[in-house]
């Protein structure tokens, strides 16, 4: 089944075709489950003018924050963008355009993009700055606003395990936005910790079917922790 083998062997190959001014969706929540090596490859490539859709934008020296110093990002659509000094500087100076979107709406917009749903109604954001310029409509006596789907030229995904056909399994809360991102990219690139042969993953346990995946690369990950919070062993 060579036509279904999604494995590539270099990050250059994984991100081939990415050019200036493209749109990228990235999985991850904070620094958890982020496609850290794919992001580094974009930094290395020096692609500029990017529109980025991601729940957060990393920290100064890790994750999507790495794309800030060389001003590779033109615009970001995110729900929460704290913890990043260079980000704040570029946002305040107007160098970086920021579109804040409620977290659940952002997730649903990605899902809708992948699922061929061009728009949906939600109560989230009614009566707030998020509703500005959007259609409002009542259903069963309650107000809802119309939110449109998001798709991107590239979707960057971090999974735990995959088979060669791109069937993916995520691990714990590193799942977050990743399965949604996977569905919404014209080209979906996935990096994983382990690649197995087709048939080795239980079909009932696959989170993302390989049909959504174009390229797959195996790597190692730093997995930096943003808020290491512990209790004493006896507690």
């Amino acid at each position, binding site marked *: 089944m060579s036509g279904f083998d999604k494995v590539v062997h270099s990050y250059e190959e994984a991100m081939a075709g990415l050019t200036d001014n493209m749109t990228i969706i990235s999985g991850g929540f904070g620094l958890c489950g982020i496609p850290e090596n794919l992001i580094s490859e974009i930094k290395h490539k020096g692609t500029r003018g990017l529109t980025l859709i991601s729940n957060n934008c990393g920290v100064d020296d890790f994750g999507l924050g790495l794309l800030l110093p060389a001003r590779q990002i033109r615009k970001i659509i*995110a729900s929460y*963008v704290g913890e990043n000094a260079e980000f704040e500087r570029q946002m305040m100076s107007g160098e970086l355009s920021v579109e804040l979107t409620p977290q659940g709406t952002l*997730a649903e917009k990605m899902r809708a993009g992948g699922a061929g749903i061009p728009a949906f109604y939600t109560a989230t*954001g009614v009566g707030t700055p998020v509703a500005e310029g959007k259609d409002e409509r009542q259903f069963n006596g309650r107000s809802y606003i119309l939110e449109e789907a998001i798709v991107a030229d590239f979707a960057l995904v971090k999974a735990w395990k995959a088979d060669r056909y791109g069937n993916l399994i995520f691990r714990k809360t590193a799942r*977050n936005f990743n399965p949604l991102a996977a569905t919404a990219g014209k080209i979906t690139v996935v990096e994983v910790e382990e690649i197995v042969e087709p048939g080795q993953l239980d079909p009932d346990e696959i989170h993302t079917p390989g049909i959504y995946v174009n390229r797959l690369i195996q790597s190692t990950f730093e997995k930096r*922790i943003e808020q290491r919070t512990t209790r004493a062993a006896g*507690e």
Partner: protein
Amino acid sequence: MALTRDQIAQRVALELQDGFYVNLGIGIPTRVANFIPQGIDVMLQSENGLLGMGAFPTEAEVDADLINAGKQTVTMVAGASIFDSAESFAMIRGGHVDLTVLGAFEVDVNGNIASYMIPGKLIKGMGGAMDLVAGADNIIVTMTHASKHGAAKLLSHCTLPLTGKGCIKKVLTDLAFIEIKAGKFHLLERAPGVSVDEIIKLTQGELVISGEIPEMQF
């Protein structure tokens, strides 16, 4: 005496019922988990994709792939489940979470809430707060009753950009437990040693005082 942050959390915890699925926001709401009454079990939902959040991990248990919505390392209880962000907010937006507790800058008599943005100051974003206030039927807002300088936060109209419109029914401050209905604040309980007059003075929106207002019991 105004309640401490832990006392606010402790009073909120008395609103929990056995079998509640609960989402606790960052700050005071997070502390509610430390005061769950005896004989009551709740399951904590963390909107980044976890139902059944447990305690913080020991050093040995720390797992970079297991965090809460505040990006802190956590653990899972037995019976926990993991899901993606769309499923997590389907749960929230669809009204399946029994109680949401979150902070705010301002609340008004119409149940409006402002909690994510102070114009001119740094804007970090609403995260999941707009989804949480729009999705839950049962929300408790926790905040200080007034600013350090005595400026009211319980208003006739919110002055800051809203997080949600007409969605708040209960507010627990360091001074009072207040219900919002029919366009008015209703004083339900006062903090031990805090007078009704003191609460009236620090509340800008219309406040209904009906009969004797009991002190909070813990």
